[in-house]
């Protein structure tokens, strides 16, 4: 009799190879991406602080540190090449390598968005007037959008750490709230626009709102790749509501 196999994938699909070095190579690749993710979360918070509170030092810090994410992205690419060349991964290993490669791209682009927000924060206050371009309501709207985008991105990175389907679903479930927060920020900008806010400043704020929304989108892309690894199904471009409903129904 063949022993009954477990119903679900093991907690860590990168482990358990007969060649333990293979485990270490996959763990190294994932570790690089987790580090990139941590940087992006810190960068997002700092960039939004620069935008909302006018803290220029935070903006400069974000711009200084942004290349670190790019360099880590190069390291991730190199590790992907090495693993493919040395191990010729198949099945779940192949999915892990392909998914981590795509996730690295998403995290790197999310890092670019944080730098974009930091540049907008600097430009916003380089204009002569008004002294304070954001009303209190606008600040609140940006903080809510930041909180939603950051929370989604953080959960995306956590999901990568364990290839967790349930965690990924919560990110999809948060997408409507992300779009609502983004819409609210833009609406505040339209309705409560200070009378002397010049068009360039309006563009800076719109660009920042869009960048934050995109960080949330990158989190959803990451969640798609996590599900691809865990379940072996490419769920991109599928109807989110039906996907969430069916996977929840299956106990995730």
């Amino acid at each position, binding site marked *: 009799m063949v022993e009954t196999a477990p119903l679900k994938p093991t907690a860590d699909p990168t482990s358990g190879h007969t060649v333990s070095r293979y485990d270490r190579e996959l763990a190294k690749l994932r570790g690089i991406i987790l580090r990139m993710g941590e940087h992006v979360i810190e960068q997002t918070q700092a960039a939004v602080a620069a935008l909302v509170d006018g803290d220029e030092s935070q903006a400069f810090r974000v711009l200084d540190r942004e290349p670190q994410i790019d360099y880590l992205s190069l390291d991730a690419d190199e590790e992907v090449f090495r693993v493919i060349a040395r191990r010729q991964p198949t*099945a779940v290993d192949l999915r892990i390598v392909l998914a981590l490669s795509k996730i690295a791209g998403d995290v790197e682009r999310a890092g670019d968005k944080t730098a974009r927000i930091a540049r907008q924060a600097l430009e916003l206050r380089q204009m002569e007037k008004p002294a304070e371009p954001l009303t209190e309501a606008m600040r609140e709207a940006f903080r809510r959008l930041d909180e939603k985008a950051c929370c989604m991105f953080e959960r995306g990175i956590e999901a990568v750490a364990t290839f967790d389907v349930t965690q990924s679903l919560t990110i999809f479930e948060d997408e409507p709230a992300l779009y609502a927060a983004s819409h609210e920020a833009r609406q505040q900008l339209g309705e409560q626009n200070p009378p002397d806010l010049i068009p360039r400043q309006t563009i800076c704020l719109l660009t920042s709102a869009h960048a934050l929304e995109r960080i949330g989108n990158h989190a959803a892309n990451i969640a798609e790749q996590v599900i691809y690894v865990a379940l072996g199904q490419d769920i991109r471009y599928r109807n989110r509501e039906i996907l969430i409903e069916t996977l929840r129904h299956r106990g995730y």
Partner: protein
Amino acid sequence: MSTTVEAMGQRVGAMSAAELSSRPDSRATVGDVTVANPRMVCREVDVWYGSKQAIKGVSLDIGKNEVVSMIGPSGCGKSTFLRCLNRMNDTIDGCRVEGSIQLDGQDIYDKGLDPVPLRAQVGMVFQKPNPFPKSIYENVAYGPRIHGLTNNKAELDALVEASLRKAGLWNEVKDRLDQPGTGLSGGQQQRLCIARTIAVSPEVILMDEPCSALDPIATAIVEELIDELRANYSIAIVTHSMQQAARVSQRTAYFHMGDLIEVGETNEIFTNPRHKLTEDYITGRFG
């Protein structure tokens, strides 16, 4: 809306199969063992060596013009199963085969069936090239001659040339057909053995680790040949090389401790196997 949900449910049904499944019944192979156009049909095949059961209720079709690879750890029964397909196990004392194996609808274990012509119809290429200690020409001509497949020397010459051409060896040996087959390189010897198998007009060619004794260049040539032979023959190949199985076959069967665990399209098996044992083996986690 309900239709869409149903469609999604079906897709998720495929998804749940993609999860690493349990296998409550050890004889329930994951995947479809049948093909639309079968040449050999094996059903519930059991093989014993004395009291030890080596194959447990294996069912598998081998289709026309396809290459089926059989993979699995040492001792899993893949070579034993391959040898059942042309009754090579008949020569092993204490070996007992049960179940049904049909070639074009005929039971190959029928008591009235002579295994010698069967082994011409279902030829075998072995792990180590084993040319006869005869000339290159005689290595290929031997089978057609004893099976009476030609009427005269001219026909035999033509058959030898055609077989060597199909095996991709003609241009390399046409000027030295009278020299010993054992004088060829390892890769050439293996192609000579393939030519010898082809010469008796088989329907199915069985290959038991045909490239394990060859260098990468000779392996590539034999793999290219396997792909060409598929146009005219059905091929079942046992290999320990995952990459070779992925490269040469259209379907792959994974054996484990005498059970056929999973069978499916090679692309699926190597990207998204449905059984955990298959995944563990092909990803190098089998311990």
